[in-house]
């Protein structure tokens, strides 16, 4: 579903390369995890894939279901089925959570030539999904992420993911800032969305999230490239020994 070949990228005004040839294939229905030391380029990868300003692709390609996404605008990639769960979700004062989600859902449907969701349909759907994530009606009315706790913000990301029904979900350190209970709730939300037509790329520092969102494949990213790929046991190895052995191996 997602095919990244030799992707190289740098910050727009700088010469320093951050991504130095990333190769990664994520098949539909699978969960891939990316771990790696700070500064390895994990978040940069998620930003380059989602089209954030400020980055320049200097080589390679990235395709979603064989469509080149690097040529598309951010919103086009979203309509094509790409979703990024932000590490630090953004606050939008004065814009209600429901209003935001409904605008997003309908913007994507319109871009795909589909019918917009009716208000009643939308309400029903949101309420059902919100219930499983323990997001109450009050939170749905509040402005997006304003005054939300860390756990609430992350659950809100998962709620948006559930409503938008994306094909390729990138979770950028979804567990950062969460206590154990909040993390379990978020993991449950993600697991409930697993589907043979959907793939997940979970970027994380810690093994514990992967206890709840069991990955099919684990990658280690360092210095702008994927340096090692393995099964779930690779994450356990990192948890035990850190990255130095692996980095020494590939140096």
């Amino acid at each position, binding site marked *: 579903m997602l095919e990244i070949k030799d992707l190289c990228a740098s910050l727009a005004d700088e010469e320093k390369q951050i991504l130095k040839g990333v190769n990664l294939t994520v098949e539909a229905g699978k969960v891939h995890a990316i771990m790696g030391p700070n500064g390895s380029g994990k978040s940069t990868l998620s930003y380059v894939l*989602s*089209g*954030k*300003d400020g980055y320049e692709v200097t080589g390679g390609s990235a395709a979603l279901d064989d469509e080149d996404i690097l040529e598309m*605008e*951010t*919103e086009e990639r*979203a*309509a094509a089925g790409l*979703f*990024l769960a*932000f590490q630090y*979700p*953004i*606050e*939008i*004062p*004065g*814009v209600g959570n429901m*209003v*935001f989600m409904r*605008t*997003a*859902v309908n*913007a*994507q449907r319109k*871009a795909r030539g589909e019918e917009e969701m009716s208000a009643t349909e939308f309400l029903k759907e949101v309420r059902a999904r919100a219930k499983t994530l323990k997001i109450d009606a009050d939170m749905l009315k509040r*402005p997006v992420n304003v005054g939300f706790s860390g756990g609430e913000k992350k659950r809100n990301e998962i709620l*948006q993911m559930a409503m*938008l029904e994306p094909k390729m979900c990138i979770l950028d350190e979804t567990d950062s800032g969460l206590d154990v209970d909040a993390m379990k709730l978020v993991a449950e939300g993600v697991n409930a969305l697993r589907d043979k037509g959907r793939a997940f790329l979970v970027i994380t520092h810690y093994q514990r999230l992967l206890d709840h969102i069991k990955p099919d494949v684990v990658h280690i990213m360092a210095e702008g490239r994927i340096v090692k790929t393995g099964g779930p046991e690779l994450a356990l190895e990192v948890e035990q020994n850190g990255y130095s052995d692996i980095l020494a191996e590939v140096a």
Partner: protein
Amino acid sequence: MQQADTGTKMVHLGKNTKSRIVSKGISAGKAQNTYRGLVSMHQKAKDSRNYTQCDSLLIGGNCGAHTVPYIEVKNNSSRVEHEATTSKVDDEQLFYCRQRGMDEEEAVALVVNGFCKDVLQALPMEFAMEAQQLVAISLEGSVG
């Protein structure tokens, strides 16, 4: 290049009177927006209070916003407060909206409407709906 110089006048004549002013100004393109507000507390307006909030939103790097408060107090027990904020439509907010599927214009319109919400909510519904549409239309083409 538009220049708008508008504002309010609030005159307190009686004791214990209270007032609240919320001004939301949006500048885009090469516009200059000025809010000029007079708050006048007369001699007999003892223990009167005013709170003025003046918020400016700047879209793009070539516009400006100005606030000129005029405060006249003729007694020693009045309380007059004035707060001003200036903000721009945050790139991060736009990226967030766009990553969820909205195009840049839709995203700016959404954020701007959020900015004006306090004022729009106080208007009669029919007017508020038109005002919202008007904001979206005014923003068309002024972004990017």
